[in-house]
């Protein structure tokens, strides 16, 4: 094994490590990461979300990897290139290859007073925490710098309730990205938010108060601006200090010089990300850094990749305003033409830069509405995807962006963060990706800044993927729409629904979906009247069908807690009915091999012993798994079993678009694996953290932190709403993970709906859950207590005492299992028995 040392665990360093790990299948490299910051890599691009309440944990980009030795808070102080070791305060690390991913540092101009207490920079989570802490009780703030960073910082101060000033040396805001007219439009937006803008002004000094804290700024135009806190956002400089001291070549204006393979002047040392100057040029955006990371990962494993050059286009939302610039935004190409569009009423400004023959799109600027950005950016260098005005005017008129995407060349990059082209996405769609989530996991497109997601949807649409919401041939509606129709019109039967809103008599797709909706809207016992005809066989016989036509039985064991007496009953039932028993992943016991006519007898025994249905057969809550928690475990901080039992009893029987799983862990060690569940709860010293949208299965996904340190009451309220909102709005067979991924606005939107009640729905959701909890009854008890209901559990209508003769068992490891023998399934394509008469 060779040693690979990575210096810096920022966005690019992290992506690099992931890229090597995913390609290095033979374990060629042993990786050590030496990181200056005390926390593992996080999403710096979304740094400002911290002030919207997004926790550092949610910004984390870190995926635990035992094979990588990550050393936090251990910066490299020097490189000994002779001996090939990286030196930190704690030791020396030998390398065969070393990758510098040290990023940038904020540039602070040499102004008097720059060291005063109360003057901050804006680069790391630590910076932001310090700003938040210092701002407590302060009234005014100033930001030096009116670029991208400066405006983000200004918004942060605003959110901290400070009256805010922005000082920009250039004559307009965001001089790098937008032109003068765009800057003017932007200024109007910003001033509307009560941020005072001073352009064309340099800061000459920062002055202290008597107590030494900052007091305010003097400007080159003589103005005095009082400020209790100052944030300097005057640009960044590449961190080439360690490389420079080691004698590695650096650029004239800083940055570690590298060639197209990201190699420095030392052929064992590479530089990637913001610290690298590729052919003399540094890039202050994450996408080029990611591209460099991929190049070096490829090279270290014998590949031949080179840096393809970078697209400096950006799209941002600053202070709530969409701003985008792409390609040659400033029109520096010779002979180019501008097409501009300004609408003071809607406050939209847009500019397209075209080649001298007006045929080729070179670049542009959008302020106020950046809907057209993904299409336009991907068209740079090619033909215009439509008439300029139709492209620029707000989407409602003409709605031309769909046509635009069809016209894009296949080589156009749709996702620039991850360098995914239109061809690659179309390829993924042809290989079976039928929704945005699938495209994301298959190509990585749309997983970083997300601005290309609308394009992914359009690509799905133009590829003819059944984007039609129609559930099946019987309904043109999506499940969500049917839910609303049934709820608002008060429809109680499938017949009424299909007669008024559909056609035909339904199928195995729409019938169970409608059955689930009717159940969720509180229509009682799921097998009465017409509803019986809607249920899948599992729901129809309240058990899980197995490959030989027998069923399995799963009694509920809330939280996985069970008394010895009940365990004995399960054992006796299994023995008496000759059932195969297995412990499930959900902490309960599954009894296999029950014939349909045995089900009521088995359940009579179970119900008498105090068991109830476990709904393993339903698209419903399955289990709430738990660890033993504070009752027994020496680490536990809360009673995880008690909560799990309470949650399982609250949500038992709740019918949903898909199965629902949950778990509760008694402390952060997470023994119950709550983060692999649709909703998972982890105890904290102060209460509970709620995670949502996890699942195991085909596409495993960790749940995301949704809210922290909740009281039990707050927790239950959020879960109530989460589940009810899911039940109302998800597609058929869409697990919560896919539901959240597909949701416009994602987790933030979900939080807005169920925490802040942004749709005014919470009362209804709460009421719906209250109705569910109040109306719950055990389906199996209700079944065995009613002879009419028991009647359907027969082998043959005309020979109820004859068991299905095709079912037989053999013994394996001391238990019955389906006998293969003559029941071996026929393979497709072989002649099949008796065609029609």
């Amino acid at each position: 094994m060779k040693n690979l040392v990575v210096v810096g665990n920022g966005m690019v360093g992290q992506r690099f490590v992931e890229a090597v790990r995913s390609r290095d299948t033979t374990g060629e490299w042993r990786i050590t990461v030496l990181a200056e910051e005390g926390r593992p890599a996080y999403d710096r691009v979304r740094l400002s979300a911290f002030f919207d309440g997004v926790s550092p944990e949610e910004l984390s980009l870190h995926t635990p990897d035992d094979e990588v030795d990550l050393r936090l808070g251990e910066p490299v102080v020097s490189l000994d290139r002779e001996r090939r070791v990286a030196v930190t305060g704690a030791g020396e690390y030998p390398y065969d290859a070393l990758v510098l991913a040290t990023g940038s540092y904020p540039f602070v101009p040499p102004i008097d007073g720059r060291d005063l207490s109360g003057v901050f920079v804006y680069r790391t989570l630590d910076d932001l925490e310090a700003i938040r802490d210092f701002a407590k009780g302060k009234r005014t703030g100033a930001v030096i710098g009116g670029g991208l960073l400066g405006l983000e910082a200004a918004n942060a101060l605003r959110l901290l309730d400070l009256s805010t000033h922005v000082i920009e040396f250039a004559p307009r805001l965001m001089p790098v990205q937008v032109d003068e007219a765009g800057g003017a439009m932007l200024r109007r937006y910003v001033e509307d938010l009560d941020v005072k803008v001073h352009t064309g002004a340099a800061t000459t000094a920062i002055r202290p108060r008597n107590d030494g804290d900052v007091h305010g700024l003097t400007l080159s135009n003589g103005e005095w601006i009082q400020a209790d806190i100052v944030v300097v956002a005057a640009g960044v400089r590449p961190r080439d200090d360690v490389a420079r001291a080691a004698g590695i070549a650096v650029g004239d204006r800083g940055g570690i010089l590298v060639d197209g393979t990201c190699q420095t002047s030392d052929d064992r040392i590479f530089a990637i990300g913001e610290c690298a100057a590729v052919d003399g040029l540094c890039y202050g955006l994450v996408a080029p850094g990611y591209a460099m990371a991929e190049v070096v990962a490829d090279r270290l494993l014998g590949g031949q990749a080179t840096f393809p050059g970078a697209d400096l286009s950006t799209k941002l939302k600053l202070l709530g305003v969409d701003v985008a610039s792409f390609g040659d935004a400033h029109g520096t190409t010779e002979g180019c033409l501008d097409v501009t569009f300004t609408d003071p009423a809607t406050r939209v400004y847009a500019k397209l830069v075209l080649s001298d023959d007006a045929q080729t799109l070179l670049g542009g600027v959008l302020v106020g509405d950046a809907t057209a950005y993904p299409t336009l950016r991907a068209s740079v260098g090619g033909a215009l995807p439509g008439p300029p005005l139709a492209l620029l005017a707000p989407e409602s008129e003409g709605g031309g962006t769909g046509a635009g995407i069809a016209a894009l060349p296949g080589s156009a990059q749709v996702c620039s963060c991850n360098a995914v082209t239109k061809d690659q996405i179309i390829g993924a769609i042809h290989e079976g990706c039928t929704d945005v989530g699938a495209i994301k996991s298959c190509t990585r497109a749309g997983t970083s800044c997300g601005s290309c997601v609308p394009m992914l949807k359009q690509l799905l649409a133009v590829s003819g993927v059944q984007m039609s919401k129609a559930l099946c041939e019987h309904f043109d509606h999506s499940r969500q729409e049917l839910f609303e129709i049934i709820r608002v019109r008060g429809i109680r039967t499938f017949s009424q629904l299909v007669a008024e809103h559909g056609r035909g008599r339904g199928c195995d797709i729409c019938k169970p979906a409608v059955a689930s909706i009717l159940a969720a809207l509180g229509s009682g016992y799921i097998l009465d009247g017409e509803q019986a005809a809607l249920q899948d066989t599992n729901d129809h016989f309240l058990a899980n069908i197995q490959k030989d036509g027998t069923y399995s039985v799963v009694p509920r064991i809330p939280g996985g807690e069970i008394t010895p007496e009940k365990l004995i009953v399960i054992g006796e039932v299994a023995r008496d009915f000759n059932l195969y028993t297995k412990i499930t992943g959900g902490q309960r016991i599954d009894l296999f091999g029950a014939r349909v006519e045995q089900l009521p007898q088995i359940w009579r025994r179970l119900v008498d012993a105090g068991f109830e249905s476990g709904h393993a057969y339903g698209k419903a809550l399955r289990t709430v798994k738990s660890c033993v928690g504070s009752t027994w475990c020496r680490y536990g901080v809360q009673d995880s079993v008690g909560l799990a039992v309470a949650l399982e009893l609250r949500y038992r029987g709740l019918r949903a678009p898909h199965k629902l799983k949950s778990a509760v862990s008694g402390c952060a060690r997470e023994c119950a694996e709550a983060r692999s569940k649709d909703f998972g709860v982890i105890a904290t010293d102060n209460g509970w953290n709620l995670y949502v949208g996890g699942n195991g299965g085909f596409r495993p996904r960790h749940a995301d932190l949704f809210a922290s340190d909740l009281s039990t009451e707050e927790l239950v309220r959020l879960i109530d709403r989460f589940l009810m909102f899911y039940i109302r709005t998800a597609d058929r067979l869409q697990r919560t993970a896919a539901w959240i991924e597909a949701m416009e606005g994602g987790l933030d939107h979900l939080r807005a709906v169920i925490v802040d009640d942004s749709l005014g729905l919470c009362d209804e959701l709460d009421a719906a859950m209250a109705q569910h909890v109040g109306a719950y009854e055990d389906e199996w008890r209700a079944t065995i207590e009613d002879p009419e209901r028991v009647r359907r559990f027969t082998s043959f209508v005309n020979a109820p005492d004859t068991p299905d003769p095709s079912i037989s068992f053999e013994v394996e490891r001391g238990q019955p299992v389906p006998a293969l023998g003559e029941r071996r399934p026929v393979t497709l394509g072989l002649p099949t028995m008796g065609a029609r008469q």
Partner: protein
Amino acid sequence: MTDTLTQQWTVVCPYDRVDPERGVAALVGGEQVAIFRTFDGSLYAIGNRDPIAGAYVMSRGIVGTRGDAPTVASPLHKQVYDLRTGECLDEPGVSVPVYNVRLRDDMIEISR
């Protein structure tokens, strides 16, 4: 095809023993038959064995329509069969046998 007059009919069960849009299984001369009642009240009978999975489960499938065809979907892997012909509509070449079914004095009768 057998002459209707000389056909052997087996009485199976009362009509109302089959719920609308559901099926029941019956033993007819040692063969397992799945009998269905559709929404309009018609009766259909097909072999109870799912030819793809090899298990005798067809009577427990969901009854519906595809276009004009009355259908049942296998409860195991959801392939859909035309109740009139026994043809599998999802897997060309796969089919189940169909049986004659009639109603006499409110009793369902099957012949092979």
